[in-house]
């Protein structure tokens, strides 16, 4: 496993080092990920897998401190190791109170790494502030700032009304490191002098405090509050008790939600940027996740589609600079990272080079194409660029570290199909999975969805000035649009996509916008079978007349299967201009040159009622209703939950979950699961389900003449072979393509056929269409006899051709109890010599193991555990590349990349340069807890 692509699942904390230009994201499963310039990334894992609550970089160092929800602190360092930097956990620490003290006494609520780097201030729930020596993590007890010590400087009448309560914010004076601003949750704010250990100023706030922010020159600070207000306070040397300069409720006068974080950024032109999170009118916009930016008369409330975890502003960090001059705002929302360019007019978003939200609509399938020809690559990029005009062209502002990984060996595309009918094209060549282009198939169909999506529909006079940002939109309006199968021919640029409602589209790449009619055909897969009634969803309605398509892949043929069941297999042959598709009822072949259906074949067993009723659609509708109820829950949930409250709730939730699990276990023991042991039979359900389709030019009828053929494998262990007659190129439009069934093989064990492959006379898999004519592959050997490899879920079997007789087999399930889930031919090159490579089968089993099986002798070469066997969606999402790499989803939003090849390995390798560090030698004497969980 080499690198994780995409957006971390359930992020919980954000940190930024203006010194290193590195950003850190913590997750609820205890992962911590650091990102800098594209290609610079690090990952660590807290041993206990607890939620990361806060992340703080130590100023001017390659170190950071994380606070985890078990109240432990962890010190992480970036260290050089064999030429590259690595993230290592150095030390962990849990604050201990005096014996008998309640846990709240030491429950950390605020962390301040002091700029002099020798101490860490820890605010707690008790109101006490502990001082921790760095890097030893030793509590300096004599420097503890107790709430009593603070209160003795506060007027008594205020003290009586409000005690200190917990420490909400700790901020160091920007100019004078000896002064620390302390904010308590009930509203009291004091300025503490480190040297004299006394309060020099106090500010008697009357509202529950959320956060504090210093102005750059230290003459003022700003506090934000639970009631949606913020207050400016002057700090002058002559007045120990200041009154607020101004208190504002930006979205008043009606009750507003809390402003949980605020920035005050000065600029050269004198108008500050005031940026704050929350504060929306409680009644009408209380469910929004917003961050408002106010600059003079400009004001925008950026409206995020998921909860805002945290955000930071990138501004001039030079101590000598007079102004902040903010350049960008980086927002970590629960489901995506959004960066807003604050320098350009209109504050456009910046296209992130990594951390892409793979799941902005749920991923329904993926397809990988290796080694894309440069021409196609450029055309896809240019089509994508036309879609991305609304993005800022600001260079990526988080640019710390140096990527020292070698350039990616080749251009690889990963295509993901989504539930909303889109296909996304990702640059999967290197460490950064980057969106190149997005294709939507929705325009071909008439849907109930409102064409004028309210994404950017905000009028001038609307208040608050909300602006939707981000791409995360998990709610598909019509699940029938979902993409199920993708096939891209990289030589011709033909693309076939197939979806949930039996739709098959053939698209070609066009560099210009175009308006044209999509040819439409229907494939009745039931043919003459009678008495069936499809109870699933209806087929999609198509648009009449010409449709406007933007530059990129434009559909020109639509085939709709009848009944409109989900398309379960798809194959395209760009040389013969044929596309084959299969559903649970049968399969068909379409000539997309002449736009003619060549044939359909019903594979359905007459007694298989279940397949007819379309139970898959029933699953879908359940999913839809679940989705709706989730939507309701999301709406009703209070958006900004208190930080500490969340901590408490999670532990409660853990407990509840544990209890639930236990109950479940007991219940399970009471009523054990039982499994029926029965041989498969022709009468089983879904035997007609077409699992795989394959085009091959081989010897189907006799050993002297080869011909184009189409192979189909079903769930019931049947393989059909059709002999095709494709007219020569010069008469391609004049004569029809003909097909004739040549063979039908019923595997005795009746297990689902998941792969079909023909090996040529030299035992090499037949090349892809057009591969030979593009001089990228040798012509297949047509002298020696061909062999047919049929992979079922249970075994691998080699047959002779043209007479199909069994030659060789490898049983998997009978011997090991595992079943084939994914299989692909992979070419393994040697990392030592360029002239050796071999083809093997890369196999993923239902237990999550990966096995490499040699061709043509079917010998198991090696086996690795890869995915947890319980991770069904991870196993289902796995795709292999042609050169022995692969991807699988580790969460809805993240792909894990793995490599089986010694030659092709894509993993981050980067350096973060360490600035001059003052004496840190005693560090080495410490017992370094080395539980660095960096993935190997």
């Amino acid at each position, binding site marked *: 496993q080499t690198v994780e692509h995409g957006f971390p699942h359930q992020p919980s904390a954000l940190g930024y080092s203006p010194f290193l230009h590195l950003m850190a994201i913590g997750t609820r499963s205890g992962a911590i990920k650091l990102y800098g310039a594209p290609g610079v990334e690090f990952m660590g894992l807290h041993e206990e897998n607890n939620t990361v609550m806060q992340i703080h970089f130590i100023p001017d160092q390659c170190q950071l401190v994380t606070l985890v929800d078990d109240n432990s602190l962890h010190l992480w360092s970036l260290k050089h190791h064999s030429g590259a930097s690595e993230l290592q956990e150095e030390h962990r620490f849990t604050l201990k109170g005096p014996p008998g003290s309640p846990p709240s006494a030491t429950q950390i609520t605020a962390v301040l790494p002091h700029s002099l780097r020798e101490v860490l201030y820890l605010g707690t729930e008790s109101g006490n502030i502990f001082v921790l020596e760095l890097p030893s993590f030793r509590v300096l007890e004599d420097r503890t700032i107790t709430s009593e010590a603070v209160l003795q400087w506060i007027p008594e009448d205020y003290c009586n009304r409000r005690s200190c309560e917990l420490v909400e914010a700790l901020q160091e004076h920007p100019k004078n490191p000896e002064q620390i601003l302390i904010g308590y949750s009930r509203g009291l704010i004091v300025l503490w002098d480190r040297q004299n250990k006394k309060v020099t100023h106090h500010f008697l706030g009357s509202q529950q405090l959320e956060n504090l922010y210093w102005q750059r020159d230290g003459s003022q600070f700003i506090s934000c509050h639970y009631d949606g207000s913020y207050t400016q306070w002057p700090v002058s040397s002559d007045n120990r008790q200041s009154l607020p300069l101004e208190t504002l409720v930006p979205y008043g006068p009606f009750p507003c939600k809390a402003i949980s974080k605020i920035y005050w950024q000065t600029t050269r032109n004198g108008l500050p940027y005031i940026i704050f999170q929350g504060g929306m009118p409680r009644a009408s916009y209380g469910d929004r996740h917003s961050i408002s930016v106010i600059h003079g008369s400009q004001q925008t409330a950026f409206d995020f589609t998921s909860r805002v975890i945290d955000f930071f502003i990138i501004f001039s960090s030079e101590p000598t600079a007079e102004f902040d001059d903010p350049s960008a705002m980086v927002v970590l929302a629960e489901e995506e990272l959004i960066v807003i360019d604050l320098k350009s007019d209109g504050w456009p978003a910046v296209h992130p080079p990594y951390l892409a939200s793979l799941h902005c609509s749920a991923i329904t399938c993926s397809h990988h194409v290796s080694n894309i020809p440069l021409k196609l690559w450029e055309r896809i990029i240019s089509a994508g660029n036309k879609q991305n005009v609304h993005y800022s062209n600001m260079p990526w502002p988080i640019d710390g570290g140096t990527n020292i990984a070698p350039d990616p060996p080749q251009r690889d595309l990963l295509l993901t199909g989504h539930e909303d009918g889109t296909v996304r094209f990702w640059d999967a060549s290197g460490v950064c999975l980057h969106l190149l282009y997005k294709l939507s198939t929705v325009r071909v169909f008439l849907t109930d969805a409102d064409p004028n999506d309210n994404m950017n529909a905000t009028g001038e006079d609307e208040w608050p000035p909300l602006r939707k940002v981000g791409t995360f939109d998990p709610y598909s309006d019509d699940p029938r649009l979902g993409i199920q199968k993708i096939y891209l021919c990289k030589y011709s640029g033909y693309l076939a996509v197939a979806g949930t409602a039996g739709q098959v589209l053939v698209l070609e790449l066009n560099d210009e916008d175009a308006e044209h009619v999509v040819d439409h055909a229907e494939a009745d897969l039931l043919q003459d079978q009678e008495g069936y009634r499809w109870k699933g969803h209806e087929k999609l309605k198509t648009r009449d007349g010409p449709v406007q398509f933007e530059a990129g892949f434009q559909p020109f043929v639509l085939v709709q299967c009848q009944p409109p069941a989900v398309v379960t297999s798809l194959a395209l042959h760009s040389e013969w201009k044929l596309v084959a598709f299969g559903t649970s009822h049968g399969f068909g072949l379409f000539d997309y040159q002449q736009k003619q259906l060549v044939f359909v074949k019903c594979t359905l067993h007459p007694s298989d009622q279940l397949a007819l009723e379309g139970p898959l659609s029933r699953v879908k509708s359940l999913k839809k209703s679940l989705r709706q109820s989730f939507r309701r829950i999301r709406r009703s949930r209070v958006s900004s939950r208190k930080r500490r409250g969340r901590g408490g709730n999670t532990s409660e939730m853990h407990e509840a979950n544990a209890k639930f699990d236990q109950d479940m276990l007991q219940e399970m023991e009471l009523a054990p699961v039982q499994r029926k042991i029965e041989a498969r039979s022709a009468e089983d359900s879904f035997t007609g389900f077409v699992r795989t389709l394959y085009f091959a030019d081989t010897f189907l009828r006799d050993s002297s003449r080869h011909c184009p053929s189409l192979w189909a494998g079903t769930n019931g262990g049947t393989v059909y072979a059709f002999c095709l007659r494709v007219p020569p190129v010069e008469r391609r439009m004049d004569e029809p393509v003909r097909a004739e069934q040549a063979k039908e093989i019923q595997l005795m064990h009746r297990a689902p056929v998941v792969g079909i492959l023909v090996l040529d006379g030299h035992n090499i898999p037949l090349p892809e269409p057009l591969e030979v004519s593009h001089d990228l592959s040798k012509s297949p050997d047509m002298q020696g006899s061909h062999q047919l490899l049929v992979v079922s879920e249970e075994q691998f079997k080699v047959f002779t051709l043209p007479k199909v007789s069994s030659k060789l087999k490898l049983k998997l399930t009978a011997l090991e*109890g595992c079943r084939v889930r994914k299989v692909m031919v992979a070419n393994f090159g040697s990392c030592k010599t360029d002239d050796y490579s071999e083809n093997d089968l890369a196999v993923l089993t239902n237990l999550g193991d990966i096995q490499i099986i040699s061709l043509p002798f079917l010998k198991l070469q090696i086996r690795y555990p890869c995915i947890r066997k319980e991770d069904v969606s991870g196993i289902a999402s796995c795709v292999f590349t042609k050169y022995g790499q692969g991807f699988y989803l580790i969460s809805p939003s993240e792909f894990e990349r793995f490599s089986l090849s010694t030659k092709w390995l894509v993993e981050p390798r980067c350096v973060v340069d360490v600035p001059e560090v003052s004496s840190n030698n005693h560090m080495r004497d410490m017992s370094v807890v080395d539980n660095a969980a960096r993935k190997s």
Partner: protein
Amino acid sequence: FGAEFRRFSLDRYKPGKFEDFYKLILHIHHIANLEVMIGYADVHGDLLPINNDDNFFKAVSSAHPLLRVFIQRQDEVDYSNFGTNTLSRKKKTLVTLRNDNLRRRPHINISMPHDFRPVSSIIDVDILPETHRRVRLYRHGCEKPLGFYIRDGTSVRVTPHGLEKVPGIFISRMVPGGLAESTGLLAVNDEVLEVNGIEVAGKTLDQVTDMMIANSHNLIITVKPANQRNNIIRSSRMSGSSGQSTDSTASHHSLSTSHVLQNFHPDEMESDEEADIVIEGGLEPQHIPKLHNLTSSSLSRINGSSLSHRLQRDLVLNNNSGRESNGSIHKLLSSLKTDPRHSLVIPRGGIEEDGTVITL
């Protein structure tokens, strides 16, 4: 035929096919146009039939060094002569018991096992611990469903550290009339130890399910029967200990030595299973034709339940008629009533078990 003796040699390790042996026998005795039944005397002195590759191979391998082969005309064969102790001494009680009943009824002509397909067998008795049973179910050519369910459970193992609870796989349900039930060799709560020679320990229920289904055409399950009272008693231990519970010793035996399925020839299985059907040409078969629809109707005749029924009736009759009733029969009957499958493994007498097939 009277007596005619020929002596010839065979390669002990490659005796060849039964068919060839049969032809050879006919040839050297010049009786090529006759149907004969070939039997041999095994090490215990029992007369056992040679009528397929299996028992032919077994017979040859048991020769030391001589193998006595008996040839009888097919129509003169007295089947009751075959079986345990048939050559050395006659068992009086049961045989005489039976004789009256059997003689009264016309002789039912049950052909020898090669004339119909086996449905199940107990194999490898000689290498397995007595507490274990290795059952082979021949699903092939049988119309019946396998018909059983398995579940997770816990099993108690004796280890050097004392008793230990370990997860195990158990038979949870039998489908009435299914193959598994009708063999009478498997029962609910039997612990499954191996599937086709592969230990299930450490495998999940789903894995074991998949393995069983993948091997369903020729399933060999090693179980530890929940009821340990009817274990096969080897000839070395003649006295009927069948009444004793052997549960306490049940788990001592490790299966490690018995990994090899001795009476199981992979080739034989392959030939069965190899039969993927290939249909050439542009035929449009509507459904897969029923293949292997062999003499399935004849199978019902030997299906366990009817067999045990008849046997039970016979025995009950015997008992009522007041003929020699002794303790062992009482025991037998009580066990028969509770579980019909046990009737198939009566220690000695009416039913014999020769390692691959069960014969009456």
